[in-house]
């Protein structure tokens, strides 16, 4: 099923040291191979660690010590007879030019610092009205620098080009900030409002911070909404998105949605075509304050669950008490029996290997759901790879 693993090339891939063809092949492999994806995460973390190495200043007295050694060994003792290089006319001229350039540059930066951000930027195109970057309104096009906010009012909207890996549409009444853009990580913060992202890059390269969770792109298209309380709603239209807060993670496939709440993090993902009763019961189980009615909500949820709703049930397994877990397991087993090697005891004890094995089996039901027909799901990778190739060609021109 897979081409040869690409683990040995991952550092070169992250640091742009591979040829265009090889880089594309690695990206395509990583999208499909869980092993290499896990290794990519490790390499990215290793790079992040290595980037923390500061340069160390040499001791101040080192030059005088070297001079003494030079004197002792007779190196460059002729300097006094020679005119120093710094007083030659050409060096004086270069130094004067540099000084003027530095002064002019400093004055220019002080005068107009807010208009042109320094460092890497993302292109922003106005779709409607007059969005603002920092305190300045942009007309047709603008640049969003690291740390800058892009804000739309009720009449305006904009589109951001996310480096060379995708696009984000920013709807009215939205506030987003560019947190970071590096070859190994691109990150936005969505403080409020709604954005839609279309990303064509290897998994976990594009992130969106919200007040109650982080959305990690796994190769997809989605919309993300944040309200004034910091709660958010994620709706995935293509591929997968992971919502995370500390150790809590929800994997959301196309056709599914997931809510988050401040102080709690991501709730449980559900398919949007599930019944209203199912969704209400899930909201109560995820975020409800009244613990006495949990059994009633679980009854409703299990009563309404279809085979593909094992997406919700599988996530719930690790988030409920032992008694509830047993009931969920039995419902799941009746809808989609566990594969060989996955036992009732193992699941009830939350054995990670068994839970993952069952999930791998169930993913076919979640991906090839009625919302995304099987043919579309199968064609997805093909289309995505085509887009990646076309983008690479365009960038190469």
């Amino acid at each position, binding site marked *: 099923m897979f081409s040869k693993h690409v*683990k*040995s*090339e*991952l*550092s*070169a891939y992250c*640091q742009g*040291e591979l040829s265009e063809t090889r880089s594309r092949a690695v990206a395509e492999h990583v999208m499909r191979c869980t092993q290499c994806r896990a*290794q990519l995460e*490790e*390499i990215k*973390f*290793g*790079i*992040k*660690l*290595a*980037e*923390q*190495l*500061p*340069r*160390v*200043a*040499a*001791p101040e007295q*080192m*030059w005088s*010590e*070297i*001079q003494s*050694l*030079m004197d002792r*060994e007779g*190196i*460059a*003792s*002729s*300097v006094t007879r*020679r005119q*120093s*290089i*710094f007083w030659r006319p*050409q*060096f004086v001229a*270069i*130094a004067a030019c*540099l000084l003027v350039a530095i002064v002019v540059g400093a004055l220019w930066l002080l005068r107009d610092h807010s208009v042109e951000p320094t460092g890497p930027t993302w292109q922003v195109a106005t779709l409607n009205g007059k969005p603002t970057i920092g305190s300045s309104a942009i007309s047709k096009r603008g640049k969003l620098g690291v740390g800058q906010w892009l804000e739309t009012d009720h009449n305006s909207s904009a589109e951001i080009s996310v480096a060379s890996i995708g696009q984000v549409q920013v709807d009215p009444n939205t506030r987003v900030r560019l947190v970071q853009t590096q070859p190994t990580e691109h990150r936005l913060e969505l403080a409020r409002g709604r954005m839609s992202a279309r990303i064509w890059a290897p998994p976990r390269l594009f992130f969106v911070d919200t007040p109650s969770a982080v959305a990690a792109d796994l190769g997809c298209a989605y919309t993300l909404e944040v309200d004034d309380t910091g709660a958010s709603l994620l709706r995935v239209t293509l591929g997968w998105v992971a919502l995370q807060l*500390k150790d809590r993670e929800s994997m959301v496939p196309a056709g599914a949605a997931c809510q988050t709440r401040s102080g709690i993090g991501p709730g449980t993902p559900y398919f949007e075509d599930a019944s209203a009763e199912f969704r209400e019961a899930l909201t109560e189980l995820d975020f409800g304050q009244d613990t006495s009615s949990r059994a009633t909500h679980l009854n409703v949820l299990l009563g309404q669950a279809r085979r593909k709703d094992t997406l919700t049930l599988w996530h719930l397994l690790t988030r409920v008490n032992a008694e509830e877990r047993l009931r969920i397991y039995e419902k799941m087993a009746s809808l989609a029996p566990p594969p060989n090697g996955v036992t009732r005891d193992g699941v009830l004890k939350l054995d990670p290997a068994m839970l993952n094995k069952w999930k791998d089996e169930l993913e076919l039901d979640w991906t090839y759901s009625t919302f995304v027909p099987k043919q579309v799901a199968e064609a997805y990778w093909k289309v995505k790879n085509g887009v990646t190739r076309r983008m690479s060609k365009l960038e190469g021109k």
Partner: protein
Amino acid sequence: MEQRAVMAERLVDGQLIRACQHGDREAFRLLFETYKDRVFSIAVYSLGDRAVADDVTQQIFLKLFTAIGQFRGDSEFTTWLYRLVVNACLDERRRTRRLVSWGDSVAMNNPSEKKSQEKQYARREIAEAVQNAIGELKPKFRLPILLKYVEGLSYEEIATVMGCSKGTVASRLNRGHSELAKRLSHLKNEAAW
């Protein structure tokens, strides 16, 4: 002094090298100011002892000034310099087989950041943990990492300095990154990132 080094970096060209080859001590000084921190950083991280790194850095510059007449400009000056540095560090390690004590001996030159003291402290802790972990790597994995992250060299430049293929550099960096991530996996959820 730092500003002088920045200006000097722009002035390092064939003319400066020729001035050094003619024994102009001011030119030497300029060359020293330009590269002293880079050379010292590699020596400190490579040898794990500030005092030893101090000695080795002085020896490297003495050797540079003595041998600069042999530099013909066939390769980049920096490649030639880093080759001297890498060889000197490897020779020193071979000579002493030193048991390095990291952490307490390496003082950092961290630029001041407008972050809370708590966050600065956490970042310093992380930087120290990284230095310690790098000190535990085998030299063949450590040196490419230092040339990449302290000096900002490309894979091709590292390969030239180390006298190996670009593929070997890629493979050693890959292994180095992976080792660092494994040794410091407990830092993954640090708030200071």
